[in-house]
């Protein structure tokens, strides 16, 4: 399975990955509309962690032995058969946050849409390379 690899030595903390992830997961897919006209604002599924000069963009690691899948009581959190990504089926998610409790990386977030759901990296579906990887200006993320 292809995964997003982090090269923290080249991450400059510009957070373009966050912006592009947010836009990619917005309804309009347009940067201005996503930030100014969509309420609630869509969430970025990648977050730049920073301490001193060390920074890196962290998103779901799509663990082989995923605790979030183990602990999901409705079976909403499941593994995508096509690309092997751990994804959340929003129709089945009831917002119990067991995935948030069990995630060792802290990359699942609460999102309020029509109802409370868990929001996390979905590797941008099957649209080739994820938006964060494509738009990283310093190649600090790679998809391989």
């Amino acid at each position, binding site marked *: 399975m292809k995964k997003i690899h982090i*090269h923290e*030595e*080249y991450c*400059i903390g510009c957070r373009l990955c966050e912006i592009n992830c947010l836009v990619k997961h917005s309804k309009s897919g347009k940067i201005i509309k996503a930030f100014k006209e969509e309420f609630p604002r869509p969430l970025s599924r990648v977050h730049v962690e920073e301490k001193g*000069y060390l920074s890196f963009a962290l998103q779901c690691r799509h663990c082989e032995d995923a605790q979030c899948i183990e602990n999901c009581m409705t079976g909403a959190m499941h593994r995508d058969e096509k690309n092997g990504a751990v994804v959340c089926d929003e129709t089945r998610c009831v917002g119990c946050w067991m995935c948030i409790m069990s995630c060792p990386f802290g990359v699942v977030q609460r999102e309020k849409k029509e109802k409370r759901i868990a929001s996390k990296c979905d590797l941008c579906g099957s649209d080739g390379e994820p938006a964060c990887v494509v738009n990283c200006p*310093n*190649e*600090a993320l790679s998809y391989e």
Partner: protein
Amino acid sequence: MVKTKLAPQLEINLPIVFSAMSYGSISYNAFRSLVQAAQEVGTYCNSGEGGLHPDFYPWGKNIIVQVASGRFGVHPDYLRVASAVEIKIGQGAKPGIGGHLPGEKVSSDISRTRKIPEGSDAISPAPHHDIYSIEDLERLVFAIKEATGYEKPVSVKIAAVHNVAAIASGAIRAGADIVAIDGIRGGTGAAPQAIRDNVGIPIELALAQVDERLRQEGIRHRASVVIAGGIRSSTDVIKAIALGADAVYIGTAALVGLGCHLCQKCYTGKCNWGIATQDPYLTKRLNPNIGTRRLVNLLRAWGLEMKEMLGGMGVNSIQSLRGNKEHLRAVGLSREEMQILGVKLAGEGW
């Protein structure tokens, strides 16, 4: 096939070599970009006077190491790992004066590479304190040849000044296999502006004089001539080769390829592009893989342009152009300049 036993040689796919920029003056990532690009293109990268970080030893086959007046980081492994050793006598940007790496740039890694205390200014003296004559230079050249088992060529880098032809001749007689001449427009991270802009002579004039003098003395075949200082395009390379150079060094052009904007603030150690800095916040701005791609692209483009120009001249190999001043014509130069360059006025025939 040549049956004669030759002195150790360097083989390059393109007559362009990355000039001496030390690890210290430029960042780890910038140096890594240069060595990786040199390996990919099949040319060499000069380590500069700041020693060689052990991480770069695997690229030794594409590295020329430098022994300068400060002798920073010079030890047996350093000499052994490289494919050639260069003795730096002078530098085009600051002939007659030594180097000065500000203490802000001397981080722990650089202090280990250079074998100097962390945070201290790295000052290279103006002269080599063991070289005050050609005979002294000969002793150092042969000391290095002994240390490397006569397997690696030894280069001597001198600045282009008024008596450069005599100095080059002396260097070759002292046993140098390569003479590198650095002209007045050579770039630098730290040199007094008055010296940088006023001391030295243009490289074209120096090169033509050196080539002519070496031919007259019958020792041109004993060494290669590499020139540096102000090589900014493929046309400069072609002109340099036609004036008698075997190859050219590029420094500033390579850094521009890496993203340098020539803001001339290298001496502050706060390079915004992560090239001439050691600040960990800034160095990570340069991804060496991207840098390598850019440098390879630069050299490839120059190589293709040079082939186009050779085709235009009707020359089928770069060796046929070397020292072939008949392919050059001057426009707007005085008679004395043309005489020194050995170039005819545009319009004059064979």
